[in-house]
């Protein structure tokens, strides 16, 4: 039998989250959720149809993934984009390190645009150990890096931090004097990172969409750091999960507007970058070589199993923003780079239920995640399926109170005895009721007894 994990459970972790963090995460999540609907209503006459279309297109991609990957590979090569395949995280790290050694044998600066795939394979650590100076250039990711922290949201990585914390970190790193103005903090980061873009020989990015028909890499962002990272250095390395394909550019308007609206309530992100390959002879700037690393790392396995629809995900973060559990505990509680309802399915699906057995419990199954999902992923159904799988494999134990409840509730006699004992439970100091009475009072039985009335009625 698989070993039961000894890491702290989500629930235990959640108890340690500070009130300040919860408030930061909750208020940012609420405002993003509020901005979502007006943006999407403005973009689509019929939002429900748009979501259905997007889900169908992603299902088509998943159904035909091997053909589309072959097509993408061929078209990328025609465009001069070099394609590399990585079975797992270790293989992806080695491929990227070798590309870096080719491009900059004596080390140097690598500028990085935000990429969840690179977080997934823990790329930075590997490159830093090999002697490279890796600099995250997205404002939030930069703060995460200098604080030795990890992102707590897939779109807004420092959702758990206040401006005072950011200001202290910037002051410590010598970016400028302490200030609580977000405007001035952003200006400090702009000045500091500008020099990094100019000195870097290599830029590393993720991929939002890869177009099979045209062999183009599509990147979306708001800050401009992603464009700088993929334009200024001589070498651009992009890494994508193999499911990030769209069949054609005609599919982009739908997905770009769903993504921007669901993620941040925008009509469109500020920059949508469609990369057709390296700099051509008649062009004056842009990278001289472009590499695309296509990552499996468990995805092929997911495609053949019950959690296949999670690979429709376009990483908008709407399910995180709307989730009552995420809002309360924040992203770090999920103990994986992918957090929130998406992460609660994707993380154990990628790594195996044995590695992360209790993530599926980090949900109230309220269904809000499925409601907001732009590609209609049935997250609650998959969370139930994961719980079932975890219990069947013996890696997740039912809580004692629930086992006792089910023991009591499955026999009439035991249920009646239990009801009689309930008033005593209120008085007793009992471990069973701790979770409940931390925030609430147990109800006092009032009025007459239903069973007595029922039995005595004539």
């Amino acid at each position, binding site marked *: 039998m698989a070993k039961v994990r000894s890491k702290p459970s989500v629930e235990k972790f959640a108890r340690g989250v500070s009130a300040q963090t919860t408030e*930061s995460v909750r208020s940012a999540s609420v405002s*993003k959720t509020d901005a979502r609907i007006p943006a999407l209503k403005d973009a689509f006459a019929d939002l429900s149809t748009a979501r259905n*279309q997007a889900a*169908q*297109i992603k*299902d*088509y991609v998943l*159904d035909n*993934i*091997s053909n589309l*990957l072959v097509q993408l590979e061929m078209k990328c090569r025609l465009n001069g984009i070099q394609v590399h*395949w990585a*079975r797992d995280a270790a*293989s992806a790290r080695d491929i990227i390190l070798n590309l870096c050694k080719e491009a900059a044998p004596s080390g140097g600066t690598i500028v990085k645009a935000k990429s969840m795939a690179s977080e997934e394979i823990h790329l930075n650590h590997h490159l830093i150990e090999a002697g490279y100076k890796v600099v995250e250039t997205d*404002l*939030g990711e930069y703060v995460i890096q200098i604080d030795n922290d990890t992102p707590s949201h897939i779109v*807004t990585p*420092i959702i758990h931090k*206040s*401006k005072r914390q*950011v200001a202290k970190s910037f002051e410590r790193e010598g970016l400028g004097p302490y200030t609580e103005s*977000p405007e001035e903090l*952003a200006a400090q*980061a*702009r000045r500091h*990172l*500008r020099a990094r873009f100019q000195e870097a020989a290599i830029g590393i990015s993720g991929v939002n969409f890869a177009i099979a028909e045209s062999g183009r890499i599509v990147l979306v962002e*708001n*800050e*401009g750091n992603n*464009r*700088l990272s993929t*334009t200024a250095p001589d070498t651009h390395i992009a890494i994508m999960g*193999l499911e990030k394909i769209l069949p054609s*550019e*005609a599919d*982009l*308007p*739908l997905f*770009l*507007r769903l993504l921007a609206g669901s993620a*941040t309530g925008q*009509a*469109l*992100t*500020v*920059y949508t*970058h*469609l990369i057709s390959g390296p700099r*051509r002879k*008649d*062009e*004056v*700037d*842009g990278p001289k070589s472009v590499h695309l690393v*296509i990552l*499996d790392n468990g995805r*092929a*396995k997911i*495609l053949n199993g019950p959690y296949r629809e999670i690979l429709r995900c376009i990483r908008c973060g709407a399910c995180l923003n709307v989730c009552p559990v995420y809002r309360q505990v924040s992203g770090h509680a999920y103990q994986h780079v992918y957090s929130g309802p998406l992460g609660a399915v994707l993380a154990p699906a990628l790594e195996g239920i044995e590695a992360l057995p209790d993530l599926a419990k980090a949900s109230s199954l309220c269904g809000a995640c499925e409601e907001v999902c732009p590609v209609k992923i049935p997250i609650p159904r998959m969370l139930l399926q994961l719980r079932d799988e975890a219990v069947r494999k013996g890696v997740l134990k039912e809580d004692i109170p629930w086992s006792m409840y089910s023991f009591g509730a499955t026999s009439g006699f035991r249920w009646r005895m239990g009801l009689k004992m309930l008033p005593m439970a209120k008085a007793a100091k009992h471990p069973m009721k701790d979770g409940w009475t931390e925030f609430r009072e147990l109800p006092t039985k009032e009025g007459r007894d239903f069973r007595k009335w029922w039995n005595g009625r004539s």
Partner: protein
Amino acid sequence: MADRDDIFADLPPAGRKARIPLPPPPLPGYTADALWKLFAVKLEALNGRVLGIDELDLILSRPYFLDHDAAAHLGRAPGGVPIWEAEVGVTSADLAIAETGTVLLSTGPGKPRLASLTPVMHVVIIPREKIVATLAEAFSRLSDRTTVLITGPSRTADIEGVLVRGVHGPREIVVVPV
């Protein structure tokens, strides 16, 4: 290549489901003038501006870089200060997209990518007739060059959700139909 073979061995066989076609984009049927009005509303909501060609003198008194096509429209010499030092980047664009207030720029001879990115102000020169209603129309006219769609000034809300403009790219964007 061993990785490639392993991955393909694990992928499910191709499905037989047919591709569901996207609905055709709505027919435009708008005049360029009407589309420019909508464009201005959308861009101004993002804190961008639409200006006339005769309103650029003050802007061009700052150190600028001018790309080839924009220079031809303005009747000035292309170039200027090095791009990384320019305060204003003046570029041409292929298309304006009314529904989102977006401009579409492709790369090519005399059109450096960084000119629209490193200066604090980006001025975009577009021929009046080069406007479409929807993103779908714009994507049906893409060239095979690396292309960028720009929708408003560079922004971030990473710090406490407060909107800050000009974090890495331009703080201001000005679109000039000619």
